[in-house]
């Protein structure tokens, strides 16, 4: 079409719309094909495989009989539920006071507290678990040694290799979820609501208990549920702590079904309760946080003034620093000590300091450096694919370009209810066998990561698109630009920041993903998280600490970029999770 300034294209009596429709349909089909491949097919294969006999592939219930036929398998299930509940509650105890103090009070160091929560949030749970093994290992753990030194006792009181130890460690690294949910809600409670209680005679504490917290309650419950789900789906920390403590949870049991020989059919059957509980609780969580009447999540904020705590502000600050000590200060002090030590047990003496661990993991170990590179490559590829895919879907859904666009949106958020371990088993069932035979390839890891983080991408992409007034694009078109021109000249430039944000929100967690990777990696596609896990099995804590620190340090520039582009708390907003 050669459009000139002054001639209207000869409009046909019946201007053809057919061609236009065909191309959008093609796009729809292409996107749905990708989503079927990423989301639906692994899920279907998971279900089918659970009913297939090994080798023959005949229909059978035998896998379920095997999976639930032994008391210790069933115990592992119950352990997971118990672990989820205890660590979610603990996480609530850590998170809620901090969230309230940061969002609504004049506690000193609110910015610092937020930063420390962020530091907790970007610490992979398995790294935290390793640090806590250094801290609270029986006898040799630093806390025990200090205790013995201080009291002269024969043994220390702490034992990380226990149910309680595991629950505390999980809670310490999942409480940021509750923190994020709760601050988001509290920041929407207007001071006027509290003023209304004050003027009717309620003091500050009563107001908090009767007005503020109840308004934030749905958000707190929502966060608790997310923590519960996080705890039962976690693989790294339980594998490092529960196995030496001689008890199993669902994910470690699944890992054992995947050991030699791989019994994917039984694993699939055994994964069903995990999937079921997750689906159910996510539905409950949506129901709670969307319930009407709680303006806290939907209403407009209004003016907010911090609550003046008086002398109590130092007590609250002390608590915040206590939590931060457990999740950040202590773990990092001893991770760093260990990474720079010849032997971590020899302590802080100068002759124990050495760079040999870094030299080893970066230059001498056969695959450690490669594993870091792999992590960043795969995470980068999946973040890119996920961002553009979800942006496409969000745009199509928001502008109603195709009928049944909602289906596409649903498929994008559906992986949210599939725990990483379960997703990996689905990917294994679907794509490990011929003809694709993707097991152990970079591709299967990238695809699995993409699928895992589609929901984060979609939530961000659709929020970004919704923030864009469609009139911006209509103005382009009415002035003679095509839809493509509108996308290129207006939509893309305006969404640059949001897209970068979404990309980072996928990339950062993807560089440390373990639950799915552990089931899908091959000899040449080991990622850093798997490497760290291997080293923990070898008991090689100095080198492990070095690798874990390298991974953390490499994340910092990305964090900096994100904060520059999107504001300091970009990872602590609700759409980050």
């Amino acid at each position: 079409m050669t459009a000139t300034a002054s001639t209207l294209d000869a409009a046909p009596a019946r201007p053809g719309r057919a061609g236009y429709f065909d191309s959008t349909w093609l796009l729809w089909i292409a996107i749905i094909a990708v989503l079927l491949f990423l989301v639906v097919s692994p899920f279907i294969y998971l279900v089918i495989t659970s009913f297939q006999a090994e080798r023959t592939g005949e229909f059978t219930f035998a896998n379920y009989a095997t999976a639930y036929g032994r008391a210790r398998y069933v115990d592992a299930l119950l352990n997971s539920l118990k672990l989820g509940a205890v660590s979610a509650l603990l996480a609530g105890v850590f998170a809620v006071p901090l969230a309230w103090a940061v969002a609504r009070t004049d506690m000193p160091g609110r910015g610092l507290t937020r930063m420390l929560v962020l530091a907790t949030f970007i610490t992979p749970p398995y790294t935290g678990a390793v640090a806590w093994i250094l801290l609270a290992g029986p006898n040799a753990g630093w806390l025990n040694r200090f205790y013995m030194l201080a009291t002269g006792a024969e043994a220390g009181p702490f034992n990380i290799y226990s149910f309680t130890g595991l629950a505390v460690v999980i809670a310490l690294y999942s409480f940021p979820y509750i923190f994020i949910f709760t601050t988001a809600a509290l920041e929407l409670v207007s001071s006027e609501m509290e003023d209304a209680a004050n003027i009717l005679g309620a003091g500050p504490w009563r107001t908090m208990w009767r007005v503020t917290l109840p308004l934030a309650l749905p958000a707190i419950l929502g966060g608790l549920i997310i923590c519960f789900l996080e705890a039962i789906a976690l693989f790294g920390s339980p594998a490092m702590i529960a196995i030496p403590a001689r008890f199993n949870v669902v994910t470690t049991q699944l890992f054992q079904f995947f050991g030699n020989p791989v019994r994917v059919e039984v694993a699939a059957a055994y994964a069903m309760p995990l999937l079921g509980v997750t689906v159910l609780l996510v539905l409950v969580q949506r129901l709670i946080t969307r319930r009407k009447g709680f303006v806290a999540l939907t209403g407009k904020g209004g003016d907010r003034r911090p609550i003046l705590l008086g002398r109590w502000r130092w007590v609250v600050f002390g608590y915040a620093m206590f939590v931060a000590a457990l999740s950040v200060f202590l773990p990092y002090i001893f991770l760093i000590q260990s990474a720079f030590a010849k032997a971590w047990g020899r302590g802080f003496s100068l002759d124990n300091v050495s760079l040999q661990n870094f030299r080893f993991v970066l230059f001498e170990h056969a695959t450690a450096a490669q594993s870091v590179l792999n992590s960043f490559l795969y995470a980068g590829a999946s973040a890119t694919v996920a961002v553009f895919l979800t942006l496409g879907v969000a745009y199509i859904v928001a502008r109603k370009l195709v009928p049944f666009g909602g289906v596409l949106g649903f498929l994008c958020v559906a992986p949210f209810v599939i725990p990483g371990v379960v997703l990996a088993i689905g990917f294994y069932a679907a794509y490990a066998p011929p003809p694709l035979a993707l097991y152990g390839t970079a591709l299967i890891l990238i695809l699995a990561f993409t699928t895992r983080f589609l929901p984060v991408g979609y939530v961000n992409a659709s929020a970004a698109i919704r923030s864009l007034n469609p009139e911006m694009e209509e103005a382009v078109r009415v002035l003679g630009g095509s839809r493509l021109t509108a996308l290129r000249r207006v939509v893309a430039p305006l969404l640059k920041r949001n897209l970068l944000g979404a990309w980072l929100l996928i990339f950062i967690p993807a560089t440390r993903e373990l639950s799915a990777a552990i089931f899908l990696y091959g000899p040449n596609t080991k990622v850093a998280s798997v490497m760290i896990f291997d080293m923990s099995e070898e008991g090689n804590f100095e080198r492990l600490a070095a690798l874990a620190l390298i991974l953390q340090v490499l994340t910092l520039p990305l964090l900096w970029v994100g904060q520059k582009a999107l504001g300091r708390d970009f990872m602590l907003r609700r759409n980050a999770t």
Partner: protein
Amino acid sequence: MSKLVLKNVAKRYGSFDAVADFSLELVKGEFVSLLGPSGCGKTTTLRMIAGFMPPTGGTIEMDGQQISSASGVVPPERRRMSMIFQSYAIWPNMTVGENVGFGLQVRKLSRSEIDRRVDKILDVVQMRNLKGRYPAELSGGQQQRVALARAIVVEPEVLLLDEPLSNLDANLREEMRFEIRRLHDEFKITTVYVTHDQSEAMVTSDRIVVMNKGKIEQIDAPHTLYRRPKSRFVAGFIGRTNFLEGDHQGNEVRFDGFTAKAGNLEGVNGSGALLYSLRPQAIGLATSQPSGQALAVEAEISSRSYLGEYWDYQVRPLTGAKPIRVSTSPSQVFEVGSRVWLEIDPAAMVRVE
């Protein structure tokens, strides 16, 4: 020849008629407003003219060529129209100059020509000195001027405006009305203007289309609409009015509190109920019985409000039940409860459906 012709245009959503049987012809250079309450279908009509939505019935033609029908539409980018949106839709990622020059760029004009035209139009809207600014640095009124410049600079065949002033404060809104009319007088672009504000429509338009519930109530010049409303809706929507119910018997029509001769009233036919509209400004108030052609009705002031520019009285005829609203100049002061005479000119009473 007509510039833009809408023939029986309709838009149906399921069983709901957003727009029904809408027919309108605009001659070249004409300024027509679509006026009505929210949800009356005026924006829908505008968006169908722009090509953003296909009609479900009827056709739209420009310069004799069909551009919209139920079976297909020329996409908006090929209509050579331009539009000003409620949100202005100024692109925040481009400067004022880039915003205004965009349409010319799409039309592949040379750089120097684009610059020349952008500068010229920015002079017209008095924004030349802000050419390099980004929209976030502009006030609402300035953004509005950029939107105007951007729409006009491409010399569109038809200019569409969708409630362009609704986001401005009252003073600016009044100023921009005249600005829009001034630009129209200067460039003579055929214009369709959507608004729910009657004074906006009256200041700017050659003709006004009053719409209600998806249908056209009346199309007329502003003064005709005001003086000769055809329906109760139009009389009530354009300005304030009294609705008087009359009962036609023999050669007189009885109203609540007074009676008029059938011969002096317009549109008296048949017998039974008739509805008239009588503007508050068209009624006189006097302390003594007036002489002359007008009907004189003895009445009592039941309440009053002072609005600075005029007095607003509620006056009840002594033999009537309902008060009649009367506006007088600020100097005509009557106390509540005092006896007055209403002066009603039967010729000012307009029969409405």
